[in-house]
């Protein structure tokens, strides 16, 4: 039994809907108190007092059980709202479970965001100490690792500059450098690596690999399947608060990607998606060499590809794609009918692969999802899938504040 690092039994977490978003004012509570006698009275009348509770609450996590042995690296995957972060928050003792229990054997370090408590007015040096203390390091420990942290972050020259003057890349490097020198026995990491440039991400992953080799236990959340397969010994797939599958990283991650509920980078559609002779088969996001990938570097052009089948032939069929950003703003719309050259082949009988190339250095870094439609004048929509695919554009050489829709690389002239 001594080789267990984390054991979770039936962990469940109930949230009131909207609890994360709003707070109560005293007036609300007083009003509730005033109404309570009336509410009770009316409940007695029709006897449905419990249904109100069921409607306004949600199980962010339900009966999640698993065991992690020492030295294992466990990846937690799942779409947004699957309960991944809630699970890490419970294990990190930030919030408590509604039901169930977990036991953790060892010193815990958790990294749910990088740069917790960073203050823009303080210098790099000061923030290292502050952040280190917040993450649970002792001052003596930070003293000892200070030079290493600064070297890892590559900010030697600016270490005594207030970090409000740092570029976002420097900020991220410094923040991760502190966290990377935390030496717990068990480490929980939320999806903090989704930011920063590719080289930086690679270094972060390398550091996590080192931790694993040192025999530390790591639990981490990721949307990106590449590190999951590379680093993990086990994977847990969560969906709507429940464990869907756990075990071998390769198998679980490929099952996850194939699952049409989770179309990140690639989606296979049920043949029933479609009507009157047109069916959508598969969709994916790929780089220029047409290999599938859910994360596209900002500067690189990429392709959105949809494979579909046509029985008989359909006059005037067109394939349309609309991209939305994280704020659900429609960013662009494009269709095969835009260019006349494809019109002939789109509606012919057989299987087709419709591919549209999106230029690099154009869309702002962030997550996008694609809506796809197969449409013809006579029928209207044969196929219409709102959240067909999603993918990430990863910041590279540019900085993005995350507010803009486009982040084009434009020629500047200064005279």
């Amino acid at each position, binding site marked *: 039994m*001594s080789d267990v690092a984390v054991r979770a039994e039936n962990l469940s977490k109930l*949230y009131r809907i909207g*609890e*994360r978003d709003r*707070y*109560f*004012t*005293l*007036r609300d*509570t007083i009003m509730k108190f005033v109404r309570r006698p009336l509410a009770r009275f009316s409940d007695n009348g029709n006897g449905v007092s419990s249904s109100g509770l069921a409607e306004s609450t949600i199980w962010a996590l339900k009966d999640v059980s698993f065991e992690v042995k*020492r030295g294992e690296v466990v990846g937690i995957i799942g779409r947004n709202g699957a309960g991944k972060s809630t699970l890490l*928050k*419970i*294990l*990190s*003792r*930030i*919030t*408590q*479970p*509604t*039901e*169930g*229990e*977990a*036991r*953790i*054997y*060892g*010193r*815990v370090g*958790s990294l*749910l*965001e990088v740069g*917790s*408590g960073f*203050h823009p*007015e*303080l210098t790099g040096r*000061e923030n290292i*100490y*502050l952040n280190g*203390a*917040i*993450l*649970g390091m*002792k*001052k003596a420990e930070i003293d000892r690792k200070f030079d290493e942290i600064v070297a890892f972050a590559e900010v030697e020259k600016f270490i005594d500059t207030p970090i409000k003057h740092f570029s976002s890349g420097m900020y991220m490097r410094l923040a991760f450098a502190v966290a990377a020198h935390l030496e717990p*026995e068990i480490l929980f990491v939320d999806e903090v690596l989704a930011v920063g440039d590719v080289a930086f991400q690679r270094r972060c992953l390398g550091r996590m690999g080192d931790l694993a080799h040192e025999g530390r236990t790591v639990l981490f959340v990721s949307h990106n399947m590449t590190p999951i397969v590379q680093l993990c010994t086990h994977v847990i797939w969560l969906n709507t608060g429940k464990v869907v599958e756990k075990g071998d990283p390769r198998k679980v991650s490929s099952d996850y990607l194939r699952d049409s509920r989770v179309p990140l980078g690639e989606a296979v559609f049920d043949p029933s998606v479609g009507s009157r002779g047109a069916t959508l088969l598969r969709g994916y996001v790929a780089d220029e060499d047409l290999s599938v990938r859910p994360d596209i570097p900002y500067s690189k052009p990429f392709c959105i590809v949809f494979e579909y089948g046509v029985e008989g032939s359909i006059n005037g069929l067109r394939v349309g794609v609309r991209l939305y950003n994280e704020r659900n703003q429609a960013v662009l719309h494009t269709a095969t009918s835009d260019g006349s050259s494809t019109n002939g082949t789109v509606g012919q009988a057989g299987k087709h692969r419709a591919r549209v190339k999106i230029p690099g250095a154009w869309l702002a870094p962030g997550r996008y999802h694609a809506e796809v439609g197969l449409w013809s004048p006579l029928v209207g929509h044969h196929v219409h899938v709102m959240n067909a695919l999603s993918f990430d554009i990863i910041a590279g050489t540019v900085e993005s504040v995350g507010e803009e829709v486009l982040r084009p690389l434009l020629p500047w002239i200064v005279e």
Partner: protein
Amino acid sequence: MNLRDESFSSPAILIRPISGWVALNLRDLWEYRELLYFLVWRDLKVRYKQTVLGVAWVVIQPVFITLVFSVFFGRLVGVPSDGIPYPVFAFCGLLPWQLFAYAVTNASNSLVANDRLITKVYFPRLVIPLSAVLSGLVDFIFAFAVLLAMMAYYGIFPTLALWTLPGFLLMAMASAVGVGLWLSAFNVEYRDVRYTLPFITQLWFFISPVAYPTSLVPEKWRFLYGLNPMTGVVEGFRWALLGTSQSPGAWLGVSVVVTIALLIGGLYYFRRMEKNFADVV
């Protein structure tokens, strides 16, 4: 095998739902004393950044308030001041009062102001309001130096009662922590606190003997008046530093009891509410 077990000798952490009243677990707080230190340090480093006058603000505020009080209350209204020059009398009362008011305001807003930390990192939540209160102490020290200068100017020297001063200072801090804990936990759920705070501190100022002496309050009401812990603190400061003729009466005992009750009640209430902070803040 044994060797390996030793290297992982930390005790198991048990995570399970807890409801109702919980133990204070002050040992956990002690473990995180360095974090407390760093949070106070951050507050001090940041507070007067990008201001022209910087830490001078700490002195300017009470000096100007004292000036205005001296003109209006001391000269025009003629408020008695127990035989002490009114400016020293008022300034000496303002010192602990400002410490208290600042600490209560700062502590009450502290949890909401640090919501990012609360939702992302584990540590004993008590650290946050405590650091907010402690960072006010430095302001107090600067203002205290001004008081000493004023006393020297007016030729007032403290009596033997001076040794009780740390006790009254502790009492001011303890009552600020007590009130701060209640209000900060309350503020997480009910943001009304933010809007009522200026109002509360203003009212509290007038029911504390800062601008006037307790001797103005009729004898029969003194007990009730002592329910305000700041009564004991402010009069205690004057007694310890300025040597006002009469030593604090029985109402000081009332103030002490109220302070302890506020503090212990605040600690337990805070611990009880703590588990929901990350979900609600």
